[in-house]
């Protein structure tokens, strides 16, 4: 199943004359850094989803908003497609370039413009790394809460575009909950401010609409984020279980006890073993599943909650519950989890990371379903996930050098996502649709819903020049590749021509 841009099903793209465009860019934007030679373009041909590559026509590396503004105006005038890119850590091919388009790299917008402790906000350029914000706020005992595992590398612009989340999300929310304001440039090169320095602003909530829109509605040029006071203490409990089901149920029990952990993560046996071999976190390698439950806040409350959670876990059938003795052990417990992906990378030549969400109560059933699918497709699956918010990251292990394995891994991944949708979940909790899950969008949404999404896109970008082919599939694509279900013997989109 090839997901590279296919004009037949994704829509025709404007034809651009590279030489003429390059000449005009140089003339109109003499101080803009432009890459145009094959060897310079290579490093940009994919993002974190490296299985798919397209060499962009041109790569531009602006440093000032005026350059981006002029570039977008020029591209709009000449109908040149533009794909924005932050740090390129996206795992769904959101920043996958187009052969006939410009890749607009925002990485040089890397300045922290203001850290305002009394207003509890920071104003930053979009290329600033997620972790750099918390580092800049640390002298004031403040931090930026959303913490994607890629936080040392990913950009805040990319976080806004993907509505990124992390371990802290259950308690502190996603990117959308931690933003005050974004400045954007529309595809026409028009400057807009969405949100404000106040907690709300007049009109429709375009800030919410824009968050997670995957670079389809405009280019982010500045972001104002909320900062929170650092919790006084954080403690972590590790619980081992002899069955994945029991661990899954324990998650619900903790919530039912009225406790919202700062982080609640689960790993299955394959992931535990891989992480332990790699990090030596001290995990119990015989356990079928472990839960890591972090409680943070004010000392007295954390102490009480640790006792409550310990009781809940024991009642839920944990074979062992450990409280990290000190900060060093707490960090080690987390290091195992945070390095689970690379750890799995060591036990398999390749792996494919999925990102589905489900209602928590469906956890045991979905894990069983994954085990069955894993056997059916003959590929191992390691499970690592944000258990507290039902965001699963099944890692499908395969070997790209074995003919057919990549395709099998993709097919298995697609089935897992459809299983998530079937139990009321979503095909993506944080990594986005991008190009990777474009076909699964047809399983989660019907033709009318997809049509309305295209309407939203058209309200901001009528000619579809920004990141074409991402996020929302065309109905043609769904008719051909989509996982649409045949209902009462009726083919979906009977009105569309077949290929």
């Amino acid at each position, binding site marked *: 199943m090839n997901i590279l841009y296919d004009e037949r099903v994704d829509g025709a793209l404007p034809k651009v004359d590279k030489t003429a465009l390059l000449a005009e860019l140089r003339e109109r934007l003499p101080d803009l850094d432009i890459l145009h030679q094959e060897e310079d373009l290579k490093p940009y041909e994919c993002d974190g989803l490296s299985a798919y590559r397209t060499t962009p026509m041109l790569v531009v590396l602006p440093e000032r908003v005026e350059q981006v503004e002029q570039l977008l105006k020029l591209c709009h005038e000449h109908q040149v497609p533009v794909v924005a890119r932050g740090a390129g850590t996206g795992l769904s091919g959101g920043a996958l370039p187009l052969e006939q388009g410009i890749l607009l790299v925002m990485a040089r917008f890397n300045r922290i413009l203001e850290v305002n402790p009394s*207003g509890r906000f920071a104003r930053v350029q979009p290329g600033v790394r997620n972790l750099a914000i918390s580092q800049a706020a640390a002298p004031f005992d403040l931090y930026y809460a959303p913490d994607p595992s890629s936080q040392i590398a990913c950009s805040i612009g990319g976080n806004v575009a993907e509505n990124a989340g992390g371990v802290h999300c259950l308690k502190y929310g996603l990117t959308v909950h931690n933003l005050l304001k974004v400045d954007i440039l529309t595809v026409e090169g028009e400057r807009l401010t969405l949100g404000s320095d106040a*907690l709300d602003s007049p*009109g*429709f909530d375009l800030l919410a609409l824009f968050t997670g829109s995957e670079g389809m509605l405009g280019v982010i040029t500045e972001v104002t984020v909320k900062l929170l006071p650092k919790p006084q203490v954080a403690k972590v409990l590790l619980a081992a279980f002899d069955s994945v089901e029991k661990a899954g149920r324990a998650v619900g029990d903790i919530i039912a006890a009225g406790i919202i952990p700062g982080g609640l993560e689960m790993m299955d046996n394959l992931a535990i073993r891989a992480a332990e071999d790699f990090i030596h976190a001290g995990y119990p390698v015989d356990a079928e599943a472990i839960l890591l439950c972090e409680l943070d806040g004010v*000392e*007295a409350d954390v102490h009480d909650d640790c006792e409550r959670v310990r009781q809940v876990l024991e009642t839920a059938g944990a074979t062992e519950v450990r409280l990290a003795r000190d900060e060093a052990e707490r960090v080690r417990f987390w290091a195992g989890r945070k390095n689970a992906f690379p750890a799995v990378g060591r036990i398999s030549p390749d792996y494919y990371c999925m990102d589905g969400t489900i209602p928590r109560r469906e956890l045991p059933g979905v894990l069983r379903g994954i085990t069955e699918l894993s056997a059916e497709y003959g590929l191992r699956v390691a499970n690592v996930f944000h258990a507290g918010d*039902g*965001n699963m990251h099944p890692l499908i292990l395969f070997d790209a050098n074995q003919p057919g394995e990549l395709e099998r891994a993709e097919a298995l991944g697609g089935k897992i996502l459809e299983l998530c949708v079937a139990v009321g979940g979503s095909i993506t909790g944080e990594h986005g649709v991008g190009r990777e899950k474009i076909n699964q969008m047809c399983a989660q949404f019907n033709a009318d819903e997809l049509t*309305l999404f295209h309407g*939203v896109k058209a309200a901001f970008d009528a000619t579809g020049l920004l990141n074409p082919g991402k996020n929302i599939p065309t109905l043609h694509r769904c008719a051909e590749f989509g996982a649409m279900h045949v209902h009462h013997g009726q083919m979906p989109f009977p009105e569309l021509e077949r290929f």
Partner: protein
Amino acid sequence: MSQTSFDASARLLEQVNDAIAQRKPLRIQGGGSKSHLGRVLTGELLDTREHRGIVTYDPTELVVTVRTGTPLAELEQTLDEQGQLLACEPPHLGTDATVGGMVAAGLSGPRRPWAGSVRDFVLGTRVITGQGKHLRFGGEVMKNVAGYDLSRLMAGSFGCLGVVTEVSLKVLPKPRAVANLRLELDLSQALQKLAQWGQQPLPISAACHDGEYLHLRLEGGEGSVAAARDRLGCETIGLDFWEDLREQRLSFFSDKRPLWRVSLPNNTPPLLLPGAQLVDWGGAQRWLKSEAPAEDIRSVVSHAGGHATCYETCDSPFQPLPAALMRYHRQLKAQLDPHGIFNPGRMYAEI
């Protein structure tokens, strides 16, 4: 309280399709409790109140899905029985408020700066669109980034983008301990203190200065609330204050001059405006009773980085938008409501 459940979405859809066919605008109304907000509407009444009841509620998922005609009080009672709440503390402004009106008006109560706004708790919606379709966006899961976030867009859109028929909301456990304090401080001292405290992990969940006193609510575990109360060391008072504030029942609100809601960056110093002021949200929301012309109020407020909404019948209750932003509002409205049938003009004449 009578808890009835009835799915009237087929009827609502039919009424919308009739309106589309005849190109006749609709005036969407829940309990009518917020009818003083926004511009005056004409149009045929679309009453949501028949469409009511909780569709699913699983406390361990922290999610409730509810039909929008359901009385807000009924939803809150159901949550309360399970030890949970709507953390955004939506104002009812009367006994008839519905869940749909709460979402469409997007108003949040005193806990808002610490817990989040109505839109922050919206996970999914079902919406009747301007194409006469009944569609589903978002869902019942905490994280969902598939497609555009139309659910959160519906919050605060005052029914101008579609009829919301169902909404899934994130709910939270009620805090284990609560304490209410009062300190005698003038406004600028209070704002300074709040800026300091805001940088510390204190369990503050509401802060209002009434001109004389700074009222604080502490919420959290027993330990943290007790420790903070000792540290801040002040008079403890009853809890009614916060509900009276949220419902605009404090004596401040009985002043006959027009009521304005001013939204500001939280560290804005005391703002010089003609009339009486009440400061909520730790400084980020200021209520103003004033007869000053709208332009004067808005120019002071805009200068400070905020905006002002008039809670009275007037031509422009919501702060006017910059021209470029208005253009995208119109384009969005044209896509979602191409025949202009949903509350046209309620927010702005142009949409």
